[in-house]
C-alpha cells in the first residue's frame, strides 16, 4: 500500500500549491486604498475559476472513465459547438441587444437547457439499440458538432460586422469578463453534485474496467452511465455558460492526474484532476493578468498547452 501513501502526499502537495496560488492571485497588489475595490473584482473571478476548473476536471475524468478512453473530452459530444451555435443564432435572429443574449440568466438557462436536450437525444442513440455502442453515439456527436459549427460560421459570415464583434466576446473562454450573475446558479448546480459524487467513487473504479466487467460485477450499467453522463453535461454546460468553451482544459488535467497518481482509484484521480484544474487556471490567470497585462486570453495558452500535450499522447499511444 506504498502507492496510496505517495498518492496522498501528492494530493497534499497539489492542495498546498492551489491554496498558495489562490492566495497569490487574490492578495498580490492589494493596498490600504484599493483593497475593497480589487477584492470585489477578484473574489468572484477566483470563485468562477475554481468552479470552472473543478467542473471541467471532474466531467472530463468521468467521461474518460465511462468511454474507457484517455484522449476524449466531453466536447466530442458537440456541446461546445452547440453553445457557440446557440449564441450565434440568438445574435443573428434577435440581435445582440435582445434579452435572450444580454440577460445572463436567461442566456445561461437557455444554453444549458439546449445542451441537456441535445445530450439526451444522444443518449437515445447510445441506448436505442443493442448494436449501437458508445462510439457510435460519439460519432453522431462529432458529426452534429461539425454541422453546427459550419452552420454557425455561415451565419457569422453574413452577419453585421458590429454584431459579430459582440458575439466574438462569447466565442472564446475568458475569465476577464466572467458572468458574475451566473456564479450563484452555477455554484448551486456544481457544488452539491460534486459533494454527492463521493458515492460514485467505487462505481467509477469498476466502470473503468469496461462495460462487460462492470456488468459482471453487478453494476446496472445503462442506468449508471446515463446518470453520470447527465452530470458531465450539466458540468460542461455550467462551465461553458460561466466562461465560454474551455473543455480542452479537461484533457490536460485528467491526463496529468492519471500520469501523476499511481493508483487507479478515482478518489485520488478525481481529486488530483480537480486540483490540477484549479492550479492551471489560477496560475495561468495570474500570469496572463499580472505578467502579460491581459495581452492574450488564458484560453489561448490552455489550448496551446492542451494541443501540444494531446499530440504527445497520440504519439506515445501509437508507439505502445
Amino acid at each position, binding site marked *: 500500500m506504498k502507492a496510496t501513501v505517495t498518492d496522498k502526499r501528492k494530493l497534499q502537495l497539489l492542495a498546498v500549491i492551489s491554496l498558495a496560488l489562490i492566495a497569490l492571485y487574490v492578495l498580490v497588489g492589494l493596498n490600504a486604498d484599493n483593497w475593497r475595490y480589487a477584492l470585489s473584482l477578484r473574489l468572484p473571478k477566483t470563485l468562477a475559476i475554481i468552479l470552472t476548473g473543478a467542473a471541467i476536471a471532474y466531467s472530463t475524468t468521468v467521461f474518460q472513465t465511462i468511454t*474507457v478512453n*484517455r484522449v476524449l473530452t466531453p466536447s466530442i459530444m458537440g456541446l461546445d459547438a452547440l453553445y457557440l451555435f446557440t449564441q450565434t443564432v440568438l445574435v443573428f435572429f434577435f440581435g445582440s441587444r435582445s434579452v435572450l443574449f444580454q440577460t445572463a440568466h436567461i442566456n445561461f438557462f437557455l444554453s444549458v437547457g439546449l445542451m441537456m436536450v441535445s445530450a439526451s437525444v444522444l443518449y437515445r442513440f447510445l441506448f436505442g439499440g*443493442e*448494436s449501437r455502442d458508445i462510439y457510435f453515439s460519439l460519432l453522431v456527436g462529432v458529426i452534429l458538432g461539425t454541422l453546427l459549427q459550419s452552420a454557425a460560421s455561415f451565419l457569422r459570415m453574413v452577419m453585421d460586422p458590429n454584431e459579430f464583434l459582440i458575439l466574438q466576446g462569447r466565442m472564446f473562454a475568458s475569465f476577464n469578463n466572467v458572468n458574475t450573475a451566473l456564479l450563484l446558479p452555477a455554484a448551486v448546480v456544481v457544488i452539491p453534485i460534486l459533494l454527492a459524487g463521493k458515492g460514485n*467513487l*467505487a*462505481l467509477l*473504479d*469498476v466502470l*473503468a*474496467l*469496461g462495460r*462487460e*466487467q462492470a*456488468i*459482471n*460485477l*453487478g*453494476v*446496472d450499467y445503462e442506468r449508471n452511465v446515463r446518470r453520470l453522463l447527465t452530470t458531465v453535461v450539466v458540468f460542461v454546460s455550467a462551465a461553458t455558460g460561466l466562461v465560454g468553451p474551455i473543455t480542452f482544459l479537461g484533457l490536460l488535467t485528467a491526463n496529468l492526474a492519471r500520469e501523476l497518481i*499511481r*493508483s*487507479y482509484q478515482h478518489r485520488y484521480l478525481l481529486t488530483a484532476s480537480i486540483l490540477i484544474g484549479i492550479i492551471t487556471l489560477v496560475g495561468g490567470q495570474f500570469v496572463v493578468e499580472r505578467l502579460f497585462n491581459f495581452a492574450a486570453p488564458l484560453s489561448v495558452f490552455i489550448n496551446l498547452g492542451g494541443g501540444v500535450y494531446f499530440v504527445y499522447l497520440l504519439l506515445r499511444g501509437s508507439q505502445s
Partner: protein
Amino acid sequence: MIELRQVVKRYGDVNVVDHVSLAIPRGKITSLIGPNGAGKSTLLGVMSRLIKKDGGEVYIDGQELSQWDHCLLSQRVSILRQQNHVDLKLTVRELVSFGRFPYARGSLQKHDWELVDQALEYLKLTDMQDKYIQHLSGGQRQRAFLAMVIAQDTDYILLDEPLNNLDMQHAVEIMRILRSLVNVLGKTIVIVLHDINFASCYSDYIVAMREGRVVQEGDQDLMMNAQVLKNIYNLDFAITEINEQKICVYY
C-alpha cells in the same frame, strides 16, 4: 440451475441464436462446442446478461434474468469473455480484489481479502500479485482475470474461450483448475471451447451448436462419437481411447 427457454437473438434478419432451450446441469462442466458462427459465444453472452436477448427467457435459480437485482445476480453468476484489455495501472492483486465488488461495494473487509488471497493462491499468482497487469504475458493476464472471477465466488461461472492464446501447459493448467472448482467447491461451469479434445477430457456434459440451434446435447461420453461429431462439423472423425480418454483425430 440455469435454464433457457426459446431464447432468440437477432442481428439484422439473422437469428444468431434461434429458439434455444437448454438446461445446464448443476455441479458439472458443460462445454459449448460447434463451428464458428454457431452462436456459442452469443448464447453465453445472453445467459450472462451481457447481450440482450430478443425473445425467450433465461432462468437463474428459478428467477428470470430481468427480475434479478443486478448486484445479487453478480453474486450468483460470473462471466469472463475473450478480450480483456484493460488500460489501467492495476496490479494483479487489485484486479482480483474487484471480484469482491458485488459484496463489498468498494470497501473490502478482512473476509474479502482472505478470498482474494485464496483466489491468487489457487491460480498460482501469489508471487506476481504486485505486478502491473500490463506487464504480464497473455497467459498470465488470463489467469489474473480468472482469479478475479474466482474471488467473485459465484455458483455459476461462464467462460468464453478461456484457452485462447494459451500454450498447452497453461491451457491444461486452467482446465485442471476448473475441474477442481467443480469437484471440490461444487461450482457449475459453462465453457465455450474450440478444441474438442479439451472438451472430451475435461467436461461432463457437451452441448453442440450449429447455425444458432442446439444440434445435440448429452454426456461427454455419448457426444464423443464419430457420427455425432460429423453431423456437427461436416468432417470425418476417428476416435480412439488413450488413457481412458476419448481423443479424436480429424486432420
